[in-house]
């Protein structure tokens, strides 16, 4: 037991590694604040373009979405970070992560929002248009607010996945939470920082996991 505490929850190591973890934590937050809006924004554009119902455009959009849903995000990141320099495009780890994860998450957000928009009956479009709203205003004031509510659990779930996704940035040496924990582990010769990082993720995301379970259950109750 002593040995377990000594290795995994060593108070002294916790004190030394805390500054590293705090710095990593803020980097993780920064990454999320960049990647989530980028992903939602591009996803929204993808979903909105689908409503135009142009056949060739739809084919392109489906190819884009399925392509980036088929690539593991880590493969995408490695490709962007280690592959693009051969084309003369050298991105900082931060930009590489932002680009790779934007491509990946936007396709998921796009699919979710598209499903949400398709849930809204045609009558809503027609009614809104007949009051004189143009296409964009119809989308913005009538369709989207209802669509987002209908797929809110999926949006929350995907956002949770995006936050977890940022841990992959450690692979390209971006100093986010996991990377800083590894560095602290190397300095202290003790894995306590890793356990601590896991704890931070857990405390950060647990409320959302709980919320999600509740939302899923409520959705089923209302559907049945």
């Amino acid at each position, binding site marked *: 037991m002593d040995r377990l505490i000594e290795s995994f929850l060593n108070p002294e190591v916790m004190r030394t590694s805390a500054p590293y973890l705090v710095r990593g934590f803020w980097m993780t937050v920064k990454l999320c604040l960049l990647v989530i809006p980028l992903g939602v924004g591009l996803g929204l554009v993808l979903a909105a373009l689908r409503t135009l119902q142009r056949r060739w455009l739809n084919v392109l959009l489906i190819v884009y979405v399925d392509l980036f849903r088929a690539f593991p995000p880590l493969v995408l990141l490695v490709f962007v970070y280690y592959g693009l320099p051969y084309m003369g495009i050298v991105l900082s780890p931060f930009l590489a992560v932002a680009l790779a994860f934007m491509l990946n998450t936007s396709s998921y957000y796009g699919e979710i929002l598209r499903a949400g928009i398709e849930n809204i009956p045609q009558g809503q479009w027609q009614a809104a248009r007949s009051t004189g709203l143009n296409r964009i205003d119809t989308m913005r004031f009538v369709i989207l607010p209802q669509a987002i509510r209908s797929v809110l659990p999926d949006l929350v779930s995907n956002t949770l996945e995006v936050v977890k996704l940022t841990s992959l940035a450690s*692979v390209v040496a971006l100093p986010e939470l996991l990377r800083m924990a590894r560095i602290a582990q190397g300095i202290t010769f003790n894995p306590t920082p890793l356990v601590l990082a896991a704890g931070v993720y857990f405390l950060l995301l647990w409320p959302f996991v709980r919320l999600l379970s509740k939302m899923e259950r409520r959705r089923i109750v209302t559907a049945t």
Partner: protein
Amino acid sequence: MIDSFFNLDVMARVLPAIISGMWVTIGLSILVITSGTVFGLALATLRALQYKVVNLFIVFFVDAFRAIPALVILMVVFFALPYVDVQLSGFVTAWLCLSLVLAAFCEEIFWTSILSVDKGQWEAARSTGFSFLRSLRYVVLPQAMRLALPPLTNRAIAIGKSTALASVVAVPEILNQASSAQAQAANASPLTLAAIAYLAIFLPLVVMSRWVESRFAWRQ
């Protein structure tokens, strides 16, 4: 650009390595999906028995493995456990960690689906003399599966893709093979080949998941 991304010489040279990587990726995915789903279903069954203390543990396990990123779990198992003399190979580490993550998600999916089945179905099954397990197996689960199948498919695909994380603990799957080949050849073609390999495995599955989703849609 063609020379650095589609260099046929380099591609021909690394093709065997990528193909052996594909078998590792496919094998690991199948192992993880099988053990993760079975364990998840077992947990959901256990939870349906409604023992308070047991359920508390299950909920905690599920929440923890849904909240902590898979890569972090992988790192803890691979780099922290050796300090207490538990040394697992990269492959076993990846199998264990990804299975536990998938099991957590599957438990949640199975459990929510079981809850969605009307209570009357349980009572009717039990009143015909079915035991608890037989009611679950022959009456409740078949109905729950309709709701569970689309999210299960998506989760299975997602966990299959996350076998790429195993490259970090030196499992010689596609990405790992491609990265080392890329460093050796100073050429991005192995990465292109890896991307094609992943597409060959996962694109059909993603397309299939679209079909499953529309086939089992809740609102019909």
